[in-house]
């Protein structure tokens, strides 16, 4: 007997969700080149973050904190494979990464040296020294910068998707966050907003089980973040976040739904933060056994083994890939270190729009 008096024509609910469409069973398997690409970007991400966290940070060359996604690389990589780019404003997707989605930056075309310059507070970093670490964005790469206030990017990503709906394009808004962010009011408001307006957003949760020192059991009473999806009338799934093929498949289906006007999806990927909250944190509160357990599920090794099994790669090729990456990073670090800091007076510019 509830009010359902108006059939909405424009931006409004198209369907009511008691019948959330089940995900199709067809599993997407990427082609060989894509498989190799995914391995490469996972390795590049790991190597870049290892340099930053374990070398440059300890050498005192990084300004501020360091937050890495070690152990979670499959999520960003598997998702980024589906991001449409290179086709202009009315074609490309938009991405709101979390602070543990380095791979997304790399795959959206931000070169490692620019990221390093960002971490070093240099003028040529993405924020020109105004903000640090993963707080970087660049609309040319369709990347929206994260802020420290978790969950803030959820409504923002929904707003991007709203624009796509208004323009009638089939672009998609990718929105990443951790399980800790799901406790924020903005997370709720943003998901509900996207659900009511049936917006093309793929909500991607990397559930790495710890928000700083807070275990997921103190974060929520539900077993799975995806249990929340039903409360918004959107489909939700929980998948192995350490298997890049599983991620690739699940994201692919959600993206397809979004492109076809079927609204948002909430995907949770189970993973583990193989490090402290940030570089200063020894994660002493995490039982050692968990690290050992998740080490065995390392997404990169699993992908590598899988590719070897498919005979796409042998030990020599892996070594070649790794040394190529190390070489690239050597150059990138050298470049970044040679970059100037911004001039002090730049502190004052760019608060508001300035006439060119």
């Amino acid at each position, binding site marked *: *007997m509830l*009010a*359902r008096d108006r059939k909405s024509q424009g931006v409004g609910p198209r369907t*009511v969700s008691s019948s959330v469409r089940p995900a199709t069973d067809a599993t997407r398997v990427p082609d060989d080149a894509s498989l190799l690409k995914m391995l490469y970007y996972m390795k590049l991400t790991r190597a870049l973050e290892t340099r930053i966290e374990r070398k440059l940070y300890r050498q005192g060359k990084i300004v501020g904190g360091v937050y890495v996604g070690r152990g979670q690389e499959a999520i960003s990589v598997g998702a980024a494979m589906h991001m449409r780019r290179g086709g202009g404003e009315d074609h490309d997707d938009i991405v709101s990464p979390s602070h543990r989605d380095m791979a997304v930056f790399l795959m959206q075309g931000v070169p490692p040296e620019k990221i390093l310059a960002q971490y070093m507070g240099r003028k040529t970093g993405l924020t020109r020294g105004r903000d640090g670490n993963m707080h970087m964005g660049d609309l040319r790469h369709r990347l929206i910068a994260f802020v420290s206030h978790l969950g803030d990017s959820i409504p923002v990503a929904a707003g991007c998707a709203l624009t796509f709906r208004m323009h009638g394009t089939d672009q998609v808004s990718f929105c990443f966050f951790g399980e800790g962010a799901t406790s924020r009011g903005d997370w*709720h408001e943003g998901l509900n907003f996207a*659900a*009511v307006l049936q917006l093309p957003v793929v909500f991607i949760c990397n559930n790495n089980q710890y928000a700083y020192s807070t275990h997921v059991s103190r974060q929520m*009473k539900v077993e799975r973040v995806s249990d929340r999806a039903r409360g918004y009338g959107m489909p939700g799934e929980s998948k192995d976040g350490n298997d890049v093929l599983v991620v690739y498949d699940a994201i692919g289906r959600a993206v397809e739904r979004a492109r076809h006007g079927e609204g948002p999806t909430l995907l949770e990927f189970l993973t583990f933060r193989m490090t402290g909250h940030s570089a200063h944190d020894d994660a002493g509160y995490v039982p050692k056994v968990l690290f050992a357990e998740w080490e065995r599920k390392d997404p990169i090794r699993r992908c590598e083994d899988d590719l070897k099994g498919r005979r796409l790669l042998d030990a020599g090729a892996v070594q070649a890939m790794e040394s190529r990456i190390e070489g690239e990073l050597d150059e990138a670090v050298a470049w970044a270190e040679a970059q100037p800091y911004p001039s002090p007076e730049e502190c004052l510019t760019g608060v508001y729009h300035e006439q060119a």
Partner: protein
Amino acid sequence: MRNPGLSRSQLLEIHRFICLNRMVEDRLSALYRQGQIHGGLYSSLGQEGISVGTAYALAPEDLLAAMIRNIGSLLVRGVAPLTLFLQFLARGDSPTGGKDGTLHFDDLEKSLIGPISVLGTLIPVMTGAALAARMRGEDRVALTYIGDGGTSTGDFHEGLNLAAVLNLPLILVVENNGYAYSTPTHRQFAVESLAERGPAYGIASETVDGTDVLAVYAATRRAVERGRQGGGPTLVECRAFRRRGHAEHDDMRYVPKALLQAWEKRDPLDRLEEFLLDEGHATKKELRAVREGIGPSLDEAVRTALERPYPPPEETLRDVYHETE
């Protein structure tokens, strides 16, 4: 309707509270039209069974936070109609000394916490109240309300999630009355029932007919028992309809007449009276006598309230902070 095990005198008491709720609001509506009420007036016509049924299921020491359409809850908790009139009329000896209006007031002696206009804010607050009670070893549950619109606020989410994680005895009564101001529920959320939000927090939830005061009472009792036994929070969705505008000024043109008429047939007072007559708990004459008994006392309370003075202007400056005697 079904009697969930209430005695005749309890049933009649519930009936009396619903009558009182409606008649107090009728008086307030008249005062509003006379220009005596300075702010907004928000009617609970058609929703009285929710306020009365939920509040009646609590023990006097249980914590309760009413929203703006829960005058009935306050009446059940023993707030005098005169107090309510003073508050709406902004008099000096109202619970807020004229500093705030509507149901925006607390009475901690009666374990009542007041709302503010910002929807959703009471949910974390009542979660904290329940937490404090548990820390002090008190067996008290906390109950508060939210409308269908208020469920879209961030505070709803944060508060309910925190209550769930801490396994606190919070009872969140979601009054789904079809509209948030002019916004129908299908523009507010994309689920059929707000009880679907329960599993999203890992808590119990159910939907009841909010025009059936006895069903509301029974559902609240279940939630209270669960809370007392350490079963954590419960979300109770009560479905009813806002049969007046958002506030007194609103002619609610946006509500289809047919919808309104359908809900008028499900009036909580009419339904309860029918039940009481059918089950032989009361006669028509007795029920009429209840209303006739309330009327004069309310008229008297209104008269008294109107005679009371406004607060002195300098009161404005007081009580921003703690003041020592």
